[in-house]
Protein backbone atom coordinates (compact mmCIF):
# COMPACT_ATOMS: atom_id res chain seq x y z
CA UNK A 1 0.00 0.00 0.00
CA UNK A 2 2.76 2.41 0.90
CA UNK A 3 4.22 1.84 -2.51
CA UNK A 4 1.14 3.04 -4.41
CA UNK A 5 1.65 6.34 -6.16
CA UNK A 6 -1.47 6.63 -8.31
CA UNK A 7 -4.81 5.00 -7.63
CA UNK A 8 -7.98 5.42 -9.67
CA UNK A 9 -11.23 4.62 -7.84
CA UNK A 10 -14.41 4.29 -9.89
CA UNK A 11 -13.10 6.89 -12.29
CA UNK A 12 -15.35 7.94 -15.20
CA UNK A 13 -14.83 10.51 -17.99
CA UNK A 14 -17.38 12.19 -20.21
CA UNK A 15 -17.44 14.43 -23.26
CA UNK A 16 -20.85 15.99 -22.73
CA UNK A 17 -23.17 12.98 -22.62
CA UNK A 18 -20.62 10.70 -24.21
CA UNK A 19 -19.33 8.23 -21.58
CA UNK A 20 -15.76 7.60 -22.75
CA UNK A 21 -14.04 6.15 -19.68
CA UNK A 22 -16.12 3.71 -17.67
CA UNK A 23 -15.55 2.92 -14.02
CA UNK A 24 -11.78 2.47 -13.97
CA UNK A 25 -10.09 1.05 -10.89
CA UNK A 26 -6.34 0.74 -11.08
CA UNK A 27 -3.39 0.95 -8.69
CA UNK A 28 0.10 1.88 -9.82
CA UNK A 29 3.29 1.59 -7.76
CA UNK A 30 6.32 3.81 -7.48
CA UNK A 31 9.05 3.42 -10.07
CA UNK A 32 6.92 1.24 -12.28
CA UNK A 33 6.69 1.67 -16.03
CA UNK A 34 3.04 1.17 -16.99
CA UNK A 35 1.94 0.82 -20.61
CA UNK A 36 -1.64 1.68 -21.47
CA UNK A 37 -2.77 0.20 -24.75
CA UNK A 38 -5.92 -0.37 -26.74
CA UNK A 39 -7.57 0.31 -30.11
CA UNK A 40 -8.34 3.85 -31.30
CA UNK A 41 -11.08 5.52 -29.34
CA UNK A 42 -10.87 3.16 -26.37
CA UNK A 43 -10.42 5.99 -23.88
CA UNK A 44 -6.78 5.43 -22.98
CA UNK A 45 -5.67 8.99 -23.75
CA UNK A 46 -8.75 10.44 -22.06
CA UNK A 47 -7.97 8.41 -18.96
CA UNK A 48 -4.36 9.57 -18.98
CA UNK A 49 -5.38 13.20 -19.24
CA UNK A 50 -7.73 12.75 -16.33
CA UNK A 51 -4.80 11.99 -14.06
CA UNK A 52 -3.20 15.43 -14.40
CA UNK A 53 -6.54 17.20 -14.92
CA UNK A 54 -5.87 18.17 -18.53
CA UNK A 55 -9.11 16.49 -19.53
CA UNK A 56 -11.31 19.19 -18.03
CA UNK A 57 -9.73 21.89 -20.18
CA UNK A 58 -11.79 20.69 -23.12
CA UNK A 59 -15.21 22.35 -23.25
CA UNK A 60 -18.00 20.05 -21.96
CA UNK A 61 -15.49 17.55 -20.59
CA UNK A 62 -16.35 16.21 -17.12
CA UNK A 63 -15.39 13.34 -14.87
CA UNK A 64 -16.57 11.43 -11.81
CA UNK A 65 -14.73 9.35 -9.27
CA UNK A 66 -11.36 9.69 -7.61
CA UNK A 67 -7.78 9.76 -8.74
CA UNK A 68 -5.46 9.56 -5.75
CA UNK A 69 -1.93 10.86 -6.03
CA UNK A 70 0.05 9.78 -2.98
CA UNK A 71 -3.23 9.26 -1.16
CA UNK A 72 -4.78 12.66 -2.03
CA UNK A 73 -7.58 13.05 -4.54
CA UNK A 74 -6.30 15.29 -7.35
CA UNK A 75 -9.83 16.50 -7.91
CA UNK A 76 -9.82 18.02 -4.43
CA UNK A 77 -6.54 19.81 -5.06
CA UNK A 78 -5.74 22.99 -6.96
CA UNK A 79 -5.72 21.96 -10.64
CA UNK A 80 -2.74 24.10 -11.54
CA UNK A 81 -0.78 22.59 -8.66
CA UNK A 82 -1.66 19.09 -9.82
CA UNK A 83 -0.41 19.82 -13.32
CA UNK A 84 2.83 21.23 -11.96
CA UNK A 85 3.31 18.14 -9.83
CA UNK A 86 2.78 15.67 -12.69
CA UNK A 87 4.86 15.79 -15.84
CA UNK A 88 3.41 15.22 -19.31
CA UNK A 89 4.96 14.52 -22.69
CA UNK A 90 2.83 14.71 -25.80
CA UNK A 91 2.56 12.89 -29.08
CA UNK A 92 4.03 15.69 -31.14
CA UNK A 93 7.15 17.29 -29.63
CA UNK A 94 6.08 20.78 -28.62
CA UNK A 95 9.03 22.83 -27.34
CA UNK A 96 8.23 26.53 -27.09
CA UNK A 97 9.47 28.10 -30.33
CA UNK A 98 10.02 31.51 -28.77
CA UNK A 99 12.35 30.18 -26.03
CA UNK A 100 15.91 28.89 -26.21
CA UNK A 101 16.78 25.30 -25.31
CA UNK A 102 17.93 26.46 -21.89
CA UNK A 103 14.72 28.41 -21.32
CA UNK A 104 12.63 25.50 -22.57
CA UNK A 105 14.04 23.18 -19.94
CA UNK A 106 13.22 25.55 -17.08
CA UNK A 107 10.02 26.78 -18.73
CA UNK A 108 7.97 25.45 -15.83
CA UNK A 109 9.72 27.87 -13.49
CA UNK A 110 10.10 30.70 -16.00
CA UNK A 111 6.49 30.85 -17.05
CA UNK A 112 5.29 30.64 -13.48
CA UNK A 113 7.52 33.46 -12.37
CA UNK A 114 9.23 31.27 -9.75
CA UNK A 115 12.49 32.89 -8.74
CA UNK A 116 15.47 30.62 -9.04
CA UNK A 117 19.08 31.75 -8.83
CA UNK A 118 21.21 31.52 -11.96
CA UNK A 119 23.41 28.87 -10.34
CA UNK A 120 20.40 26.72 -9.43
CA UNK A 121 18.97 27.21 -12.92
CA UNK A 122 22.19 25.95 -14.48
CA UNK A 123 22.14 22.91 -12.23
CA UNK A 124 18.52 22.10 -13.06
CA UNK A 125 19.13 22.48 -16.78
CA UNK A 126 22.18 20.26 -16.80
CA UNK A 127 20.60 17.65 -14.57
CA UNK A 128 17.37 17.48 -16.60
CA UNK A 129 19.09 17.38 -19.96
CA UNK A 130 21.43 14.66 -18.72
CA UNK A 131 18.52 12.58 -17.45
CA UNK A 132 16.91 13.01 -20.85
CA UNK A 133 20.13 11.89 -22.58
CA UNK A 134 20.35 15.19 -24.44
CA UNK A 135 23.01 17.12 -22.53
CA UNK A 136 26.01 16.15 -24.62
CA UNK A 137 24.26 16.99 -27.86
CA UNK A 138 23.07 20.48 -26.90
CA UNK A 139 25.40 21.72 -24.19
CA UNK A 140 27.14 24.06 -26.61
CA UNK A 141 23.95 25.50 -28.07
CA UNK A 142 21.88 26.03 -24.96
CA UNK A 143 20.97 29.56 -25.89
CA UNK A 144 19.83 28.83 -29.38
CA UNK A 145 16.19 28.21 -30.15
CA UNK A 146 15.37 24.52 -30.36
CA UNK A 147 13.96 24.49 -33.88
CA UNK A 148 17.10 22.98 -35.42
CA UNK A 149 16.81 19.85 -33.30
CA UNK A 150 15.55 16.63 -34.85
CA UNK A 151 12.18 15.20 -33.86
CA UNK A 152 13.74 12.76 -31.42
CA UNK A 153 15.88 15.46 -29.85
CA UNK A 154 12.89 17.79 -29.53
CA UNK A 155 10.96 15.06 -27.78
CA UNK A 156 13.83 14.50 -25.37
CA UNK A 157 13.88 18.23 -24.77
CA UNK A 158 10.21 18.00 -23.81
CA UNK A 159 11.04 15.14 -21.48
CA UNK A 160 13.81 17.24 -19.91
CA UNK A 161 11.32 20.08 -19.52
CA UNK A 162 8.93 17.77 -17.67
CA UNK A 163 11.69 16.33 -15.50
CA UNK A 164 12.95 19.78 -14.50
CA UNK A 165 9.81 20.26 -12.43
CA UNK A 166 10.84 17.28 -10.26
CA UNK A 167 7.62 15.33 -10.65
CA UNK A 168 7.22 11.88 -9.15
CA UNK A 169 4.99 10.80 -11.99
CA UNK A 170 5.41 11.40 -15.72
CA UNK A 171 2.64 10.75 -18.22
CA UNK A 172 3.42 9.99 -21.87
CA UNK A 173 0.73 10.31 -24.55
CA UNK A 174 1.94 8.22 -27.52
CA UNK A 175 5.38 9.84 -27.23
CA UNK A 176 7.06 8.10 -30.15
CA UNK A 177 4.28 7.79 -32.71
CA UNK A 178 5.53 10.90 -34.52
CA UNK A 179 9.19 9.84 -34.45
CA UNK A 180 11.38 7.79 -36.75
CA UNK A 181 12.59 4.34 -35.59
CA UNK A 182 16.01 5.51 -34.41
CA UNK A 183 14.59 8.35 -32.33
CA UNK A 184 11.93 5.96 -31.05
CA UNK A 185 14.50 3.55 -29.74
CA UNK A 186 16.50 6.33 -28.09
CA UNK A 187 13.36 7.47 -26.26
CA UNK A 188 12.51 3.90 -25.27
CA UNK A 189 16.03 3.53 -23.91
CA UNK A 190 15.32 6.64 -21.87
CA UNK A 191 12.26 5.03 -20.26
CA UNK A 192 14.56 2.40 -18.95
CA UNK A 193 16.85 4.97 -17.35
CA UNK A 194 14.10 7.21 -16.00
CA UNK A 195 12.47 4.34 -14.16
CA UNK A 196 14.99 4.57 -11.34
CA UNK A 197 13.77 7.98 -10.24
CA UNK A 198 10.25 8.35 -11.67
CA UNK A 199 7.05 6.47 -12.25
CA UNK A 200 6.06 6.39 -15.92
CA UNK A 201 2.64 5.83 -17.46
CA UNK A 202 2.88 5.47 -21.23
CA UNK A 203 -0.11 5.41 -23.55
CA UNK A 204 0.90 3.66 -26.70
CA UNK A 205 -0.65 2.55 -29.94
CA UNK A 206 2.20 0.17 -30.50
CA UNK A 207 1.83 -3.23 -28.84
CA UNK A 208 5.43 -4.14 -29.38
CA UNK A 209 6.52 -0.97 -27.61
CA UNK A 210 4.28 -1.84 -24.65
CA UNK A 211 5.88 -5.25 -24.52
CA UNK A 212 9.37 -3.81 -24.74
CA UNK A 213 9.32 -1.08 -22.15
CA UNK A 214 6.74 -1.75 -19.46
CA UNK A 215 6.55 -3.73 -16.20
CA UNK A 216 2.79 -3.93 -16.23
CA UNK A 217 0.33 -3.23 -19.01
CA UNK A 218 -3.25 -1.97 -18.91
CA UNK A 219 -5.56 -2.88 -21.77
CA UNK A 220 -8.47 -0.55 -22.46
CA UNK A 221 -11.37 -1.46 -24.71
CA UNK A 222 -14.42 0.72 -25.40
CA UNK A 223 -13.80 2.82 -22.30
CA UNK A 224 -13.32 -0.05 -19.89
CA UNK A 225 -10.16 -1.25 -18.23
CA UNK A 226 -10.37 -4.82 -19.43
CA UNK A 227 -7.15 -6.22 -18.05
CA UNK A 228 -4.19 -5.01 -16.00
CA UNK A 229 -1.35 -7.40 -15.43
CA UNK A 230 2.36 -8.14 -15.64
CA UNK A 231 3.44 -7.35 -19.19
CA UNK A 232 4.95 -10.78 -19.73
CA UNK A 233 1.79 -12.44 -18.48
CA UNK A 234 -0.49 -10.21 -20.57
CA UNK A 235 1.31 -10.92 -23.81
CA UNK A 236 1.77 -14.65 -23.37
CA UNK A 237 -1.38 -15.71 -21.59
CA UNK A 238 -3.97 -12.94 -21.35
CA UNK A 239 -6.92 -13.62 -19.09
CA UNK A 240 -9.61 -11.88 -21.17
CA UNK A 241 -10.74 -12.91 -24.64
CA UNK A 242 -10.80 -9.27 -25.78
CA UNK A 243 -7.17 -8.82 -24.81
CA UNK A 244 -6.35 -11.99 -26.71
CA UNK A 245 -8.15 -10.65 -29.78
CA UNK A 246 -6.30 -7.35 -29.64
CA UNK A 247 -2.90 -8.93 -29.22
CA UNK A 248 -3.41 -11.30 -32.07
CA UNK A 249 -4.45 -8.43 -34.30
CA UNK A 250 -8.14 -9.24 -34.71
CA UNK A 251 -8.80 -5.53 -34.37
CA UNK A 252 -6.67 -2.53 -33.90
Amino acid at each position, binding site marked *: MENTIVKAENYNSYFGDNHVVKDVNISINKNEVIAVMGPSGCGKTTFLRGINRMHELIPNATSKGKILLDGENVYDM*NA*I*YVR*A*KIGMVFQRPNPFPNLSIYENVIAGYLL*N*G*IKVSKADKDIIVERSLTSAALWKEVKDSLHKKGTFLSGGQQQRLCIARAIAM*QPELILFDEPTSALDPISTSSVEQLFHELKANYTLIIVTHNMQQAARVSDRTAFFYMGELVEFDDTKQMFTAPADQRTQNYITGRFS
Partner: protein
Amino acid sequence: MENKRLNLSNSQLKWETFFKRILIGMSILLVLIILGVLATLILESMPSIKSLGIGFLWGKIWDPVQNIYGAYPFLVGTLLTSFIALIISIPFSYAIAIYLGEYNPKGWLSDLLKNTIELIAAVPSIIYGFWGLFVLVPVIRTFEMKIGVAPYGIGVFTSSLILAVMIIPYAASLGITLIRMVPSPLKEGAYALGATRFEVIRSVIMPYTRSGLFAGVLLSLGRALGETMAVTMLIGNTSAVADSIKNAIFGPGNTMASVIANEFTEADHTEYLSALIELGLVLFFVTVVINLIGKRIITRFTND
Protein backbone atom coordinates in the same frame (compact mmCIF):
# COMPACT_ATOMS: atom_id res chain seq x y z
CA MET B 1 9.80 24.00 -3.55
CA GLU B 2 6.54 22.18 -2.81
CA ASN B 3 4.95 24.76 -0.56
CA LYS B 4 6.05 27.65 -2.73
CA ARG B 5 4.25 26.10 -5.64
CA LEU B 6 1.06 25.50 -3.72
CA ASN B 7 0.94 29.10 -2.50
CA LEU B 8 1.74 30.39 -5.95
CA SER B 9 -1.02 28.27 -7.42
CA ASN B 10 -3.66 29.71 -5.12
CA SER B 11 -2.87 33.31 -5.97
CA GLN B 12 -2.57 32.37 -9.62
CA LEU B 13 -6.15 31.15 -9.51
CA LYS B 14 -7.32 34.63 -8.52
CA TRP B 15 -5.45 36.20 -11.44
CA GLU B 16 -6.90 33.51 -13.65
CA THR B 17 -10.51 34.57 -13.07
CA PHE B 18 -9.55 38.26 -13.24
CA PHE B 19 -7.86 37.75 -16.58
CA LYS B 20 -10.75 35.76 -18.04
CA ARG B 21 -13.14 38.47 -16.87
CA ILE B 22 -11.11 41.20 -18.57
CA LEU B 23 -11.14 39.28 -21.85
CA ILE B 24 -14.89 38.95 -21.64
CA GLY B 25 -15.18 42.58 -20.60
CA MET B 26 -13.30 43.88 -23.62
CA SER B 27 -15.48 41.86 -25.95
CA ILE B 28 -18.59 43.21 -24.26
CA LEU B 29 -17.11 46.69 -24.67
CA LEU B 30 -17.20 46.21 -28.43
CA VAL B 31 -20.87 45.41 -28.37
CA LEU B 32 -21.45 48.43 -26.13
CA ILE B 33 -19.60 50.70 -28.55
CA ILE B 34 -21.80 49.67 -31.46
CA LEU B 35 -24.94 49.94 -29.37
CA GLY B 36 -23.72 53.33 -28.19
CA VAL B 37 -23.14 54.55 -31.73
CA LEU B 38 -26.60 53.44 -32.76
CA ALA B 39 -28.23 54.91 -29.66
CA THR B 40 -26.49 58.27 -30.04
CA LEU B 41 -27.39 58.55 -33.70
CA ILE B 42 -31.04 57.71 -33.08
CA LEU B 43 -31.31 59.91 -30.01
CA GLU B 44 -29.79 62.97 -31.62
CA SER B 45 -31.81 62.64 -34.81
CA MET B 46 -35.07 62.11 -32.92
CA PRO B 47 -36.21 65.75 -33.24
CA SER B 48 -35.78 65.55 -36.99
CA ILE B 49 -37.32 62.09 -37.30
CA LYS B 50 -40.34 63.23 -35.32
CA SER B 51 -40.96 66.44 -37.19
CA LEU B 52 -40.09 65.37 -40.72
CA GLY B 53 -41.04 61.72 -40.73
CA ILE B 54 -40.28 59.40 -43.59
CA GLY B 55 -40.79 62.18 -46.13
CA PHE B 56 -37.31 63.30 -45.17
CA LEU B 57 -35.92 60.72 -47.55
CA TRP B 58 -37.51 62.15 -50.65
CA GLY B 59 -37.60 65.82 -49.66
CA LYS B 60 -35.88 67.70 -52.45
CA ILE B 61 -35.14 70.95 -50.68
CA TRP B 62 -32.33 71.46 -48.20
CA ASP B 63 -32.61 74.99 -46.83
CA PRO B 64 -31.35 75.44 -43.27
CA VAL B 65 -32.27 79.12 -43.25
CA GLN B 66 -35.92 78.31 -43.79
CA ASN B 67 -35.65 75.09 -41.74
CA ILE B 68 -36.64 72.89 -44.65
CA TYR B 69 -34.71 69.65 -44.78
CA GLY B 70 -34.84 66.94 -47.42
CA ALA B 71 -32.33 64.17 -47.91
CA TYR B 72 -33.05 63.52 -51.59
CA PRO B 73 -30.19 65.64 -53.05
CA PHE B 74 -27.67 63.81 -50.88
CA LEU B 75 -29.08 60.38 -51.58
CA VAL B 76 -28.76 61.17 -55.27
CA GLY B 77 -25.26 62.53 -54.82
CA THR B 78 -24.14 59.55 -52.77
CA LEU B 79 -25.62 57.00 -55.12
CA LEU B 80 -24.32 58.75 -58.23
CA THR B 81 -20.74 59.12 -57.00
CA SER B 82 -20.62 55.61 -55.58
CA PHE B 83 -22.10 53.86 -58.56
CA ILE B 84 -20.14 55.79 -61.16
CA ALA B 85 -16.99 55.09 -59.16
CA LEU B 86 -17.96 51.43 -58.90
CA ILE B 87 -18.61 51.07 -62.62
CA ILE B 88 -15.31 52.70 -63.49
CA SER B 89 -13.38 50.65 -60.95
CA ILE B 90 -14.80 47.18 -61.65
CA PRO B 91 -12.88 46.47 -64.88
CA PHE B 92 -9.65 47.45 -63.17
CA SER B 93 -10.35 45.46 -60.01
CA TYR B 94 -11.27 42.38 -62.02
CA ALA B 95 -8.24 42.76 -64.30
CA ILE B 96 -5.92 42.95 -61.29
CA ALA B 97 -7.63 40.01 -59.64
CA ILE B 98 -7.43 37.87 -62.78
CA TYR B 99 -3.85 38.86 -63.51
CA LEU B 100 -2.51 38.33 -60.00
CA GLY B 101 -4.78 35.40 -59.23
CA GLU B 102 -4.44 33.40 -62.42
CA TYR B 103 -1.90 34.66 -64.93
CA ASN B 104 0.91 35.68 -62.61
CA PRO B 105 0.41 34.65 -58.99
CA LYS B 106 4.08 34.53 -58.02
CA GLY B 107 7.29 36.32 -58.75
CA TRP B 108 8.82 39.75 -58.48
CA LEU B 109 6.47 41.47 -60.95
CA SER B 110 3.47 40.02 -59.19
CA ASP B 111 4.75 41.18 -55.80
CA LEU B 112 5.46 44.63 -57.20
CA LEU B 113 1.95 45.00 -58.57
CA LYS B 114 0.41 43.66 -55.38
CA ASN B 115 2.38 46.14 -53.29
CA THR B 116 1.36 48.97 -55.60
CA ILE B 117 -2.29 48.09 -55.20
CA GLU B 118 -1.89 48.01 -51.43
CA LEU B 119 -0.19 51.38 -51.63
CA ILE B 120 -3.20 52.85 -53.42
CA ALA B 121 -5.31 51.85 -50.45
CA ALA B 122 -2.76 53.17 -47.98
CA VAL B 123 -2.65 56.74 -49.28
CA PRO B 124 -4.87 58.90 -47.05
CA SER B 125 -8.00 60.21 -48.74
CA ILE B 126 -7.15 63.80 -47.88
CA ILE B 127 -4.09 63.55 -50.09
CA TYR B 128 -6.17 62.23 -52.98
CA GLY B 129 -8.56 65.11 -52.42
CA PHE B 130 -5.81 67.69 -52.30
CA TRP B 131 -4.14 66.40 -55.42
CA GLY B 132 -7.48 66.13 -57.17
CA LEU B 133 -8.33 69.73 -56.34
CA PHE B 134 -5.15 71.10 -57.90
CA VAL B 135 -4.39 68.66 -60.68
CA LEU B 136 -7.49 66.76 -61.70
CA VAL B 137 -9.97 69.63 -61.53
CA PRO B 138 -8.28 71.80 -64.19
CA VAL B 139 -7.99 68.75 -66.45
CA ILE B 140 -11.66 67.93 -66.04
CA ARG B 141 -12.53 71.56 -66.63
CA THR B 142 -10.82 71.45 -70.03
CA PHE B 143 -12.49 68.12 -70.75
CA GLU B 144 -15.89 69.54 -69.89
CA MET B 145 -15.32 72.52 -72.18
CA LYS B 146 -14.47 70.11 -74.97
CA ILE B 147 -17.62 68.05 -74.58
CA GLY B 148 -19.80 71.11 -74.16
CA VAL B 149 -20.88 70.97 -70.54
CA ALA B 150 -20.57 73.73 -67.99
CA PRO B 151 -16.84 73.74 -67.08
CA TYR B 152 -17.05 73.59 -63.30
CA GLY B 153 -14.10 71.25 -62.95
CA ILE B 154 -15.36 70.16 -59.58
CA GLY B 155 -18.48 68.06 -59.31
CA VAL B 156 -19.93 64.61 -59.10
CA PHE B 157 -17.92 63.29 -62.03
CA THR B 158 -14.56 64.46 -60.70
CA SER B 159 -15.17 63.00 -57.26
CA SER B 160 -16.34 59.76 -58.83
CA LEU B 161 -13.06 59.50 -60.71
CA ILE B 162 -10.95 59.86 -57.60
CA LEU B 163 -13.27 57.59 -55.67
CA ALA B 164 -12.90 54.94 -58.38
CA VAL B 165 -9.14 54.87 -57.94
CA MET B 166 -9.47 54.71 -54.15
CA ILE B 167 -11.84 51.75 -54.07
CA ILE B 168 -10.08 49.55 -56.62
CA PRO B 169 -7.87 47.79 -54.04
CA TYR B 170 -10.86 46.49 -52.06
CA ALA B 171 -12.48 44.38 -54.72
CA ALA B 172 -9.07 43.58 -56.22
CA SER B 173 -7.44 42.04 -53.14
CA LEU B 174 -10.52 39.99 -52.33
CA GLY B 175 -10.68 38.87 -55.96
CA ILE B 176 -7.03 37.78 -55.93
CA THR B 177 -7.60 35.56 -52.90
CA LEU B 178 -10.75 34.06 -54.37
CA ILE B 179 -9.30 33.33 -57.79
CA ARG B 180 -6.27 31.65 -56.25
CA MET B 181 -8.67 29.43 -54.34
CA VAL B 182 -10.15 27.88 -57.47
CA PRO B 183 -9.16 24.20 -57.27
CA SER B 184 -6.60 23.12 -59.86
CA PRO B 185 -8.45 19.92 -60.80
CA LEU B 186 -11.33 22.06 -62.04
CA LYS B 187 -9.10 24.11 -64.31
CA GLU B 188 -7.06 21.14 -65.46
CA GLY B 189 -10.21 19.35 -66.51
CA ALA B 190 -11.09 22.20 -68.81
CA TYR B 191 -7.57 22.46 -70.24
CA ALA B 192 -7.58 18.74 -70.88
CA LEU B 193 -10.64 19.23 -73.04
CA GLY B 194 -8.71 21.72 -75.17
CA ALA B 195 -9.93 24.99 -73.73
CA THR B 196 -7.86 28.14 -74.20
CA ARG B 197 -6.77 30.19 -71.19
CA PHE B 198 -9.45 32.74 -71.85
CA GLU B 199 -12.10 30.02 -72.01
CA VAL B 200 -10.95 28.49 -68.75
CA ILE B 201 -11.16 31.88 -67.10
CA ARG B 202 -14.54 32.62 -68.58
CA SER B 203 -16.16 29.22 -68.08
CA VAL B 204 -14.49 27.85 -64.97
CA ILE B 205 -12.92 30.56 -62.83
CA MET B 206 -15.51 33.30 -63.25
CA PRO B 207 -18.57 31.18 -62.44
CA TYR B 208 -16.77 29.60 -59.51
CA THR B 209 -15.84 32.93 -57.96
CA ARG B 210 -18.91 34.86 -59.04
CA SER B 211 -20.55 35.27 -55.65
CA GLY B 212 -17.24 36.02 -53.97
CA LEU B 213 -16.37 38.66 -56.55
CA PHE B 214 -19.80 40.17 -56.05
CA ALA B 215 -19.03 40.39 -52.34
CA GLY B 216 -15.82 42.22 -53.27
CA VAL B 217 -17.85 44.68 -55.28
CA LEU B 218 -20.09 45.21 -52.26
CA LEU B 219 -17.07 45.91 -50.08
CA SER B 220 -15.81 48.46 -52.60
CA LEU B 221 -19.28 49.99 -52.64
CA GLY B 222 -19.34 50.18 -48.85
CA ARG B 223 -16.02 51.97 -48.92
CA ALA B 224 -17.24 54.40 -51.55
CA LEU B 225 -20.41 55.24 -49.64
CA GLY B 226 -18.51 56.14 -46.51
CA GLU B 227 -15.72 58.15 -48.13
CA THR B 228 -15.75 61.72 -46.95
CA MET B 229 -12.70 63.89 -47.41
CA ALA B 230 -11.72 63.40 -51.04
CA VAL B 231 -15.35 63.73 -52.07
CA THR B 232 -15.90 66.82 -49.92
CA MET B 233 -13.00 68.59 -51.57
CA LEU B 234 -14.02 67.76 -55.10
CA ILE B 235 -17.78 67.66 -55.27
CA GLY B 236 -18.64 71.34 -55.10
CA ASN B 237 -20.88 71.27 -52.06
CA THR B 238 -24.18 72.24 -53.64
CA SER B 239 -27.31 71.03 -51.92
CA ALA B 240 -29.72 71.51 -54.80
CA VAL B 241 -31.04 68.78 -57.03
CA ALA B 242 -29.71 69.11 -60.58
CA ASP B 243 -32.17 69.82 -63.37
CA SER B 244 -30.81 67.36 -65.90
CA ILE B 245 -28.84 64.16 -65.91
CA LYS B 246 -25.95 65.89 -67.62
CA ASN B 247 -25.80 68.49 -64.90
CA ALA B 248 -26.32 65.90 -62.22
CA ILE B 249 -23.17 64.13 -63.32
CA PHE B 250 -20.97 66.95 -64.44
CA GLY B 251 -22.21 69.62 -62.09
CA PRO B 252 -21.59 70.15 -58.39
CA GLY B 253 -23.47 68.21 -55.77
CA ASN B 254 -23.21 66.80 -52.29
CA THR B 255 -23.15 63.42 -50.65
CA MET B 256 -24.49 62.57 -47.22
CA ALA B 257 -20.93 62.40 -45.90
CA SER B 258 -19.80 65.65 -47.50
CA VAL B 259 -22.76 67.74 -46.35
CA ILE B 260 -22.23 66.53 -42.79
CA ALA B 261 -18.53 67.35 -43.00
CA ASN B 262 -19.25 70.82 -44.31
CA GLU B 263 -22.21 71.93 -42.26
CA PHE B 264 -21.95 70.12 -38.92
CA THR B 265 -19.98 72.83 -37.16
CA GLU B 266 -22.25 75.53 -38.57
CA ALA B 267 -25.48 73.91 -37.43
CA ASP B 268 -26.61 76.33 -34.77
CA HIS B 269 -30.13 75.16 -34.08
CA THR B 270 -31.56 71.82 -33.06
CA GLU B 271 -33.58 71.07 -36.19
CA TYR B 272 -30.56 71.73 -38.40
CA LEU B 273 -28.24 69.59 -36.32
CA SER B 274 -30.66 66.71 -35.90
CA ALA B 275 -31.40 66.71 -39.66
CA LEU B 276 -27.66 66.30 -40.27
CA ILE B 277 -27.48 63.54 -37.68
CA GLU B 278 -30.40 61.82 -39.35
CA LEU B 279 -28.35 61.82 -42.55
CA GLY B 280 -25.57 60.22 -40.55
CA LEU B 281 -27.99 57.59 -39.32
CA VAL B 282 -29.08 56.77 -42.87
CA LEU B 283 -25.43 56.64 -43.96
CA PHE B 284 -24.64 54.35 -41.03
CA PHE B 285 -27.41 51.90 -41.90
CA VAL B 286 -26.66 51.80 -45.60
CA THR B 287 -22.91 51.22 -45.21
CA VAL B 288 -23.31 48.70 -42.41
CA VAL B 289 -25.90 46.65 -44.29
CA ILE B 290 -23.84 46.56 -47.46
CA ASN B 291 -20.66 45.62 -45.61
CA LEU B 292 -22.38 42.88 -43.63
CA ILE B 293 -23.96 41.36 -46.72
CA GLY B 294 -20.55 41.36 -48.39
CA LYS B 295 -18.89 39.72 -45.37
CA ARG B 296 -21.67 37.14 -45.05
CA ILE B 297 -21.20 36.12 -48.69
CA ILE B 298 -17.46 35.79 -48.15
CA THR B 299 -17.77 33.58 -45.07
CA ARG B 300 -20.28 31.39 -46.84
CA PHE B 301 -17.95 31.17 -49.82
CA THR B 302 -14.85 30.28 -47.80
CA ASN B 303 -16.72 27.72 -45.73
CA ASP B 304 -17.94 25.75 -48.73
